[in-house]
């Protein structure tokens, strides 16, 4: 009997010791509870974070909070976060006003569970608690709260983006369905008008045309636009019976470009002139590509060079070498910090959106041309928004209407 009692006492002692060691550091006797501590699933995320909230100002500005979490897999309490009260105000949660309403004087913490205890299944229970410390001494602790993490199905914070997209999509379908056969005015783009001149020059001189699609992948919009232009250029090259060479950086782009050029030769009625080696792979390294294409340009002295697509530092390396050979150079890219190099080294440069519009401009397809209207509409919307928004923010700042300023700024923010 005495032996059983001793065993029970020993077990109780070890259990108590275990519980004490699992508790947050610094815990001593019973301390006041942090009032109003809640934990919920973080809204609008993939299901790997919790949102903890509690009222601030209970224990003074020098309070340091520590947050602990526990899951079935992790076992004991895991130290999840530590911060001063002022660093986690509810209004600092990066969500817009239509998706998140921060209460004044409230603390809010977004707790990324995955980074702490690994990925959990949707619906998993996570136990959390917060403890307040002053001078490293525990002064209050919340009750442990259990919350479930869940994957959400809609990013409400991106509603502004979705509305803008919906407007553009509606305008897009309206413009395409009202595509006119004739009579839609398109501003003259000198760089595209010069394509005929460049190809004609090449034919007269008996020298090749180089079409450089840059270092973008097939998922890059400028590379996609470049393949459309390549199709139109190749059609003219085939019609004039001139020669085109397309050195590639990306093998996927090369495969697509091969099909595009082949199709252009077919449409021009010159399938016999098409050769598989018109498109060729050079290198998947930026400077190796630039060195190789520079070498070819220097040796072959082409009559015309097109730089259309995505370019980085190699833009000037290519364009400057092309310039020294005396070739007509037409460039187009949407990388705005490379545009100055093309401006100075090339005869014509397509700026960003002109590159995207080039396919429609050259092909004159009514539906494609009509879609350009949508770009203009989009720009009009942006211009009006910038003007109205600018005035509202300026007036709001002058009159100290902080709420108005915040609303206007939030409307145009990306989340």
């Amino acid at each position: 009997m005495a032996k059983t009692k001793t065993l029970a006492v020993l077990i109780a002692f070890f259990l108590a010791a275990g519980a004490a060691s699992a508790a947050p550091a610094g815990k001593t006797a019973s301390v006041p509870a942090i009032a109003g501590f809640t934990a919920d699933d973080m809204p609008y995320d993939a299901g790997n974070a919790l949102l903890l909230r509690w009222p601030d100002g209970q224990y003074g500005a020098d309070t340091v909070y520590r947050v602990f979490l526990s899951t079935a897999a992790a076992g004991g309490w895991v130290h999840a976060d530590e911060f001063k009260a002022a660093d986690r105000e509810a209004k600092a949660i990066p969500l817009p006003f239509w998706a998140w309403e921060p209460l004044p004087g409230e603390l809010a913490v977004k707790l990324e569970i995955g980074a702490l205890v690994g990925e959990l299944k949707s619906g998993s229970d996570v136990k959390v608690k917060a403890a307040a410390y002053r001078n490293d001494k525990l002064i209050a602790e919340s009750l442990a709260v259990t919350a479930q993490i869940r994957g959400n199905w809609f990013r409400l914070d991106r509603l502004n983006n979705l509305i803008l997209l919906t407007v553009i999509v509606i305008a897009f379908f309206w413009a395409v369905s009202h595509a006119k056969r004739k009579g839609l005015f398109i501003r003259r783009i000198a760089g595209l008008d010069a394509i005929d001149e460049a190809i004609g020059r090449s034919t007269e001189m008996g020298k090749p045309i180089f079409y450089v699609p840059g270092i973008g992948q097939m998922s890059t919009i400028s590379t996609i636009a470049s393949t459309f232009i390549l199709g139109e250029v190749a059609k003219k090259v085939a019609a004039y019976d001139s020669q085109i060479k397309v050195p590639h950086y990306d093998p996927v782009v090369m495969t697509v470009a091969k099909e595009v050029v082949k199709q252009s030769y077919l449409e021009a009625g010159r399938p016999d002139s098409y050769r598989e080696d018109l498109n060729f792979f050079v290198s998947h390294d930026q400077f190796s590509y630039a060195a190789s294409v520079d070498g070819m340009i220097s040796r072959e002295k082409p009559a015309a060079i097109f730089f259309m697509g995505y370019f980085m530092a190699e833009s000037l390396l290519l364009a400057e070498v092309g310039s020294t050979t005396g070739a007509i150079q037409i460039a187009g890219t949407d990388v705005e910090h490379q545009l100055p190099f093309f401006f100075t080294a090339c005869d014509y440069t397509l700026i960003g959106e002109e590159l995207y519009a080039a396919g429609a401009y050259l092909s004159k397809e009514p539906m494609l041309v009509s879609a350009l209207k949508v770009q203009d509409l989009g720009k009009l919307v942006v211009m009006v928004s910038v003007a109205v928004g600018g005035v509202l923010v300026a007036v709001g700042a002058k009159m100290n209407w902080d709420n108005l300023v915040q609303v206007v700024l939030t409307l145009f923010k990306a989340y």
Partner: protein
Amino acid sequence: MKFIKNYLPLAMVMVVGLLMLASYYIPHKHSVDYVELMNKWENIVFAFAFLLGLLSLFVSHYGKIRRRHDGWGYSIFVFVGFFIMVIPALMSGGKQMIDGQVTGLGWSFRYVYNALSATMFAVLAFYIVSTAYRSFRIKSGQALVLFIAAFILILGKVPLGQMAWESVLGWTGYGIDRVIEWIMSVPAVAGKRGIMIGIAIGAIVTALKIIFGIERQYMGKD
């Protein structure tokens, strides 16, 4: 046949495109997994396409050597360079360091590849000078604006220019630093943002044209 050649690719582009678009608004794990899956597929397609690219490179340069095409000697270096990198890579299992020792691949990377890449990048400096010279030949009103802005920026970056500015225009109370800051943060940013807004809208419309099959030149015409 027409279904396989025309409609099936269009349907695939539309479905995949719309799902990718939707994934931007759907944070759920299924959506994240779908995007990851697509990225994996892209990598797989790229790997096969890379083999095609390599084949294209070898065929093209072999043809040049065989036909003794102008500059065929350079084509030999393509093969030499390829084997110089590939053979040590195979021997060292693709590692640049083994037990603290630099392997043949590591040596080639450090002392050949990196040196050559750095050289190409350094050449850029010389080209910038020649481009700047060309920009400074004022042929139009726009070129004059470009020249003035660039001249002020260059002036402000050298001590001599700063001293010259202070002695000539110091009485205005506007230091060259303030002028440069204004140029960089007002007209330069305004121009850049204008271009970026146009690009963003153009990109959306281009994406819509491809997703909804309006732009399908990549498929050819029937």
